């Protein structure tokens, strides 16, 4: 369970000072006090940064987190609506602009990610709802001349003596009162919306084509830009003959920007057609020399060295090997991956009279605003960012190079522009989940106890690149030299002194290992790296849970029983494994179908998954996945189910297909024909069992992913006797598999 109290207290202290419309936010960005980015309605009551209630009883909820499909607008509307006594479905949801009051309480900046949004806001937004309800009751007591303790509320109305009065009737009085800061919260027994299932509040908009994504923004005079970038990451433009594109219909500008050449035209298709005529020449970079084969050799060379940074060393792994009855060794490979959200990167920017307006669906409007400021030279207070729905993100929309590009373009061409990346741009010029080579040597004794766990990971680290991408936006005033210095420092620190936590997270923590050693060696060829749904857990789970399966078999134990035996110090994961084990016992797979089991803890949530798999003509087919999850209180159980379903499909794409190959530094894949995404005819049925441990909510968006690849690999072993240690799973590639019983 994550400790959130400190940040929550900080949040409450600052966002709770909401009396009389005065809002004081805490600030790490140096903005200080600034007006809320809220368009006030006539007679609208704005008790805090999150609500506006109008005289006609419209309830506007300013959603502080970005809606990328995870259902956070429904989830957060549920929290504030529960305490305010307003149906979450009746809110008009507005995605909040840039203001410190909308900072993620877990991060201290305005950013969405890390499966934190629901847990971080669980108490703060309920408190905002409760405080606002309290001031409305106080106002109603004055206006109706009835003692406050004789008033109750229901679904946006104050009830008094059998009469119903809309909240909106009291907003004028409420605006003159001091809003309390610590009104009592409901006990869970009184919840009317939390823990209930009802349709997502964005469901109608998203079923009628009326939900607005960044790509849908269209403003008067808007032109369209397409950028040609180097096929090898990081290479700058050497030269280009612009004439071939300039003369094409509709083209207004062809300009050089830091990432390549931008073509601006009246319509998108004109810009795209013209950009294809260009033949830019790029400077040489070290990555030119790298291919998948050379890269794998570099990883293997580092794995074979005894050297490495020791990240974890507890007990005595040597003694653990001595105590083992059997010792196994396995080497696991997971490739670079692109996020491939279905909406490619895009942004609309207009700069007029020294003021900039940006429209883009991002995981950080704050960083987006900062980048516009940095690259336009405008002051941050002259920049407005309009957030939209995000057409998928999965970590991709935390990196905003497209915002830098559009700012450079608009600054140069002086007209409103929409920049759109193509799918090919997305796959080839993206920012990636790092590749990893992992080796685990582990021992097990006769009683089925893991006696030793000696693991090493070789690969790139995401933190230096993340700093490089996030710092310039969050701190627009920071000089380029300082940013480079900090990124360089992080890079060398993570190569030589401290292991990047996200490089090894999940490789060892779940089980009762008394003797454990984790070693890390950074190998980084220069492809840009970032968070990818479930981050380090997306690959460490594959190595860890595959090895646990091998150990269980070596110990001649049932895989569930074996994991129960080794999670006695981890009761919540132990319980999830137990519940999943019962579900597995009750299954009777069809002829030719085999079951595989895996469990993993990530983002403070515990998940176990059972994959029912068959292998036909060397092809792996996943028929059904049963998922058991403990994420504390499920604020909307149906959204928890949906996130598990989605994470399983996302993880299956990686398990069965996901792979990026490099040739002379260039990503070889380009679109969905060679970077396939799981399709409906390949998708399994999914059953989700929610175990309610009654704790405060924990992460939901990511934790469903880590167990699926190993669950499928373990089922493939059950089906074929082949232990696949490389992703994507490929029964024809036995030469890639390194593993043995070593003692």
């Amino acid at each position, binding site marked *: 369970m994550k400790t959130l109290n400190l940040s929550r207290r900080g949040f409450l202290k600052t966002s709770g000072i909401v009396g009389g419309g005065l809002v004081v936010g805490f600030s790490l960005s140096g903005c200080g006090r600034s007006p809320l980015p809220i368009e006030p309605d006539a007679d609208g009551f704005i008790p805090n940064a999150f609500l506006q209630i109008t005289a006609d009883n419209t309830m506007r909820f300013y959603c502080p987190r970005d809606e990328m499909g995870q259902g956070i607008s429904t989830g957060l509307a549920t929290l504030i609506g529960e305490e305010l006594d307003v149906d979450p479905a009746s809110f008009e949801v507005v995605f909040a602009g840039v203001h410190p009051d909308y900072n993620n309480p877990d991060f201290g900046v305005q950013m969405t990610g890390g499966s934190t949004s629901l847990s971080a806001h669980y108490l703060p937004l309920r408190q905002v709802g409760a405080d606002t309800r309290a001031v409305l009751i106080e106002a109603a007591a004055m206006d109706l001349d009835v003692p406050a303790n004789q008033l109750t509320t229901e679904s946006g109305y104050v009830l008094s003596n059998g009469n119903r009065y809309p909240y909106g009737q009291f907003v004028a009085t409420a605006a003159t009162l001091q809003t309390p800061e610590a009104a009592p919260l409901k006990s869970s027994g009184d919840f009317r919306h939390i823990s209930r299932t009802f349709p997502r509040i964005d469901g109608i908009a998203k079923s*009628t*084509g*009326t939900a607005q994504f960044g790509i849908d923004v269209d403003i008067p005079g808007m032109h369209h830009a397409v950028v040609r970038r180097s096929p090898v990451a990081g290479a700058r433009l050497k030269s280009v003959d612009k004439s071939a594109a300039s003369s094409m*219909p509709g083209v207004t500008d062809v300009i050089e920007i830091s990432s390549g050449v931008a073509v601006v035209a009246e*319509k998108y298709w004109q810009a795209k057609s013209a950009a294809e005529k260009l033949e830019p020449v790029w400077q040489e970079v070290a990555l030119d020399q790298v291919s998948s084969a050379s890269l794998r050799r570099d990883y293997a060379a580092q794995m074979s060295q005894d050297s490495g940074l020791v990240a974890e060393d507890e007990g005595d792994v040597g003694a653990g090997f001595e105590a083992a009855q059997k010792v196994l060794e396995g080497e696991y490979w997971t490739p670079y991956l692109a996020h491939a959200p279905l909406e490619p990167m895009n942004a609309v920017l207009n700069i007029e009279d020294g003021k900039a307006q940006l429209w883009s669906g991002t995981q950080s409007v704050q960083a987006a605003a900062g980048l516009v400021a940095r690259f336009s030279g405008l002051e941050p207070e002259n920049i407005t960012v309009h957030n939209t*729905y995000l*057409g998928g993100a999965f970590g991709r929309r935390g990196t905003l190079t497209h915002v830098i590009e559009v700012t450079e373009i608009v600054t140069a061409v002086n007209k409103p522009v929409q920049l759109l990346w193509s799918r090919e741009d997305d796959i080839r010029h993206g920012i990636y989940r790092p590749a990893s080579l992992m080796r685990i040597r582990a021992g097990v004794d006769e009683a089925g106890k893991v006696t030793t766990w000696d693991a090493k990971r070789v690969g790139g680290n995401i933190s230096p690149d993340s700093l490089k991408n996030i710092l310039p936006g969050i701190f627009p005033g920071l000089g380029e030299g300082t940013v480079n210095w900090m990124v360089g420092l992080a890079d060398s620190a993570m190569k030589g002194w401290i292991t990047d936590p996200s490089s090894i997270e999940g490789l060892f923590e779940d089980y009762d290992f008394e003797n454990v050693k984790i070693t890390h060696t950074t190998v980084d060829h220069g492809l840009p790296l970032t968070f990818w749904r479930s981050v380090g857990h997306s690959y460490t789970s594959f190595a860890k849970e595959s090895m646990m399966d091998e150990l269980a078999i070596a110990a001649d134990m049932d895989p569930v029983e074996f994991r129960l035996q080794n999670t006695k110090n981890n009761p919540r994961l132990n319980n999830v494994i137990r519940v999943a084990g019962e579900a597995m016992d009750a299954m009777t797979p069809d002829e030719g179908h085999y079951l595989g089991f895996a469990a993993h803890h990530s983002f403070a949530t515990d998940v176990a998954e059972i994959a029912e798999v068959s292998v036909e003509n060397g092809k792996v087919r996943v028929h059904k996945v049963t998922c058991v999850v403990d994420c504390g209180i499920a604020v909307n159980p149906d959204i928890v189910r949906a996130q598990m*379903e989605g994470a399983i499909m996302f993880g299956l794409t990686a398990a069965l297909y996901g792979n990026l190959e490099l040739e002379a530094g260039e990503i070889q894949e380009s679109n969905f024909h060679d970077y396939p995404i799981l399709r409906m005819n390949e998708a399994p049925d999914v059953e989700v069992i929610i175990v309610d441990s009654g704790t405060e909510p924990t992460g939901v968006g990511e934790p469903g992913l880590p167990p699926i690849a190993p669950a499928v690999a373990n089922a493939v072993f059950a089906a074929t006797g082949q232990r696949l240690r490389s992703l994507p799973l490929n029964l024809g590639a036995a030469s890639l598999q390194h593993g043995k019983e070593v003692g």
Partner: protein
Amino acid sequence: MIEFMLNGETVTTDDAPDTPLLWVVRDTFKLKGSKYGCGAGLCGACTMHVDGAAVRTCVLPISSVAGRAVTTIEGLGTPENLHPLQAAWYELSVPQCGYCQSGQIMSAAALLADNPSPSATDVDAAMAGNICRCGCYVRIKQAILQVGGTSLTDTSLAYDATLSDQETHA
């Protein structure tokens, strides 16, 4: 100048004849419900109906729809007047990010027009061209089967009941 029917109205455009229908609809006629996902007919986010058939419009030159009838998601139903598939989509909370759903619904609507009570296998076959990166497949299939399993009138009634449940909930 190319003339065609767009959601029941005759329209004309002077966009270049090789311009894909998707971009004509989005940039010229400003209907933004149909999405760009791949530009290669691989993901289905751009699916519209041309003379009733589901078509990938990101690779369909505007010249080839001259004189034909194009229906987009905007022509299928509206928030106030949902198509039964849209009602089922809402009721089952099918969408996550929602970006692919216009294309999914247009493919599903073409399937049901052709085969009002499809089997799960029929649905798999008809929907295999539409990618959902969020992985909403379980629910997409469930929604189509649900609509296919009841007459359109029954489904509308079921949806009305859901809406009033919502209001009661409020």
